[in-house]
């Protein structure tokens, strides 16, 4: 009887550890801490993608309203086990690119991109990993005062 009870306790503690790990996302916590002292959290995107068949377009898409007279910060955090680095493009509803976290001229990939928004509307937010590689990452959207 004692043996079974001990076994149950072991199973239960194992469950608690696993469950606790699932609920806390270390990358999300780390990313949240790195947005900057004047940044206020607004929302987050959690991106997990496999290897892409082609690199024609960024694969993770979300719509988001961005409002005039607001400075938004997109903080991009890539999990260290990812093959590629998390990148971001934002398009407006007229299909014009508003920003990219990749500077095509220099090849620089930015982990922080601020958008000083002057046109309220729905924007398409696209994420992927460089060269369509597999990876997981988090992007935090904050407001900067």
């Amino acid at each position, binding site marked *: 009887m004692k043996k079974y009870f001990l076994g149950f306790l072991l199973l239960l503690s194992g*469950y608690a550890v696993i469950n606790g790990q699932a609920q806390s996302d270390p990358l999300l916590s780390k990313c949240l801490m790195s947005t900057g002292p004047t940044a206020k*959290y607004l*929302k987050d995107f959690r991106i997990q993608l496999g290897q892409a068949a082609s690199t024609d377009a960024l694969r993770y898409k979300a719509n988001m*309203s961005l409002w005039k007279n607001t400075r938004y*910060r997109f903080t991009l955090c890539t999990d260290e086990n990812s093959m590629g680095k998390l990148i971001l493009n934002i398009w407006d509803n007229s299909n014009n690119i508003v920003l990219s976290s990749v500077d095509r001229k220099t090849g620089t990939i930015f982990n922080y*991109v601020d958008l*000083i928004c002057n*046109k*309220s509307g729905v924007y398409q937010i696209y994420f992927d990993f460089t060269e369509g590689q597999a990876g997981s990452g988090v992007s935090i959207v904050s407001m900067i005062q």
Partner: protein
Amino acid sequence: MKGRVIISVLAISLAVLSCRNNSAKPEGFVLADMDSLTASANPGVDAMEEIYRNFSSPLEIANLFQVSGVPFSPAYLASSLNANEKTTSFQKALYLGILGADLGYLNMYEKTGTSIELLSSVKKIADGLNVGQFFDFETIKRISLNKSNLDSLLFLSVDSYSRMDEYLRKNNRSQLSAIMIVGVWIEAQYFATQVMKQYPGNLLRERIGEQKYFLEDLVRIVNPYCDTDKEFTTVCSYLRDIASKYENVKISYSKGEPSSSVKDGILVMTQTETSMVEMTDQQLAEIIEMTGIVRNKLIAN
């Protein structure tokens, strides 16, 4: 034999525990009265997700107040809302939304120590809708009392609401998700219009005018339920009353190329393309008045 029985009991106990907080397994929850609306009225999980993501949160409205130098005022809050045994699921979802906006406003102004009573109400109402397991009351309360990390507090509050909303939508209770979003929006709109009366300014005036966008989406969210329930019929007519005041508000755009710079490793993009709101003082006054009437009726029920 005795051992096998014990093992079986332990296995069942673990299975029950593993279902806790698992949004993919709704079997453990008892659905409330309003939940009997037909699934055919559901506008679709994807559509709701899109609309939910598109909505200007009360945090953004409160941020605008702060940018404009507007001081905190407890007078705008509906903090006396509480649920009892007579409160319907519709009312609980509505109150959850309204209190969520109040919580966002308090958090943005870092009035976190005073938000404990409100947090308790949110928890009680969430429990009443069987979504209390997604509201991390103890952690939010601890951070609120410690005033330790505003960003973590904002994240946990928003994340809790997102998870409650997601759970409702994915478990054929989209009508409650819809009414919760109505509650959040009406309260944020109430803040904006009340502040506008006391501290008129162009930034806020434009933001109120721009709500025309979201109001159209909001009407689209609730529209499938308008004829299914008396409470929904009423809220639909309220939203149409506000929308009618926006009818002649115009939003126009001017073109421009974005400019960029790099500062301290941060890429900064500035849009030169702009949106402009055309709204007369009379239209604004009517929107403010109608918003106040609707919001006060909703919290008086």
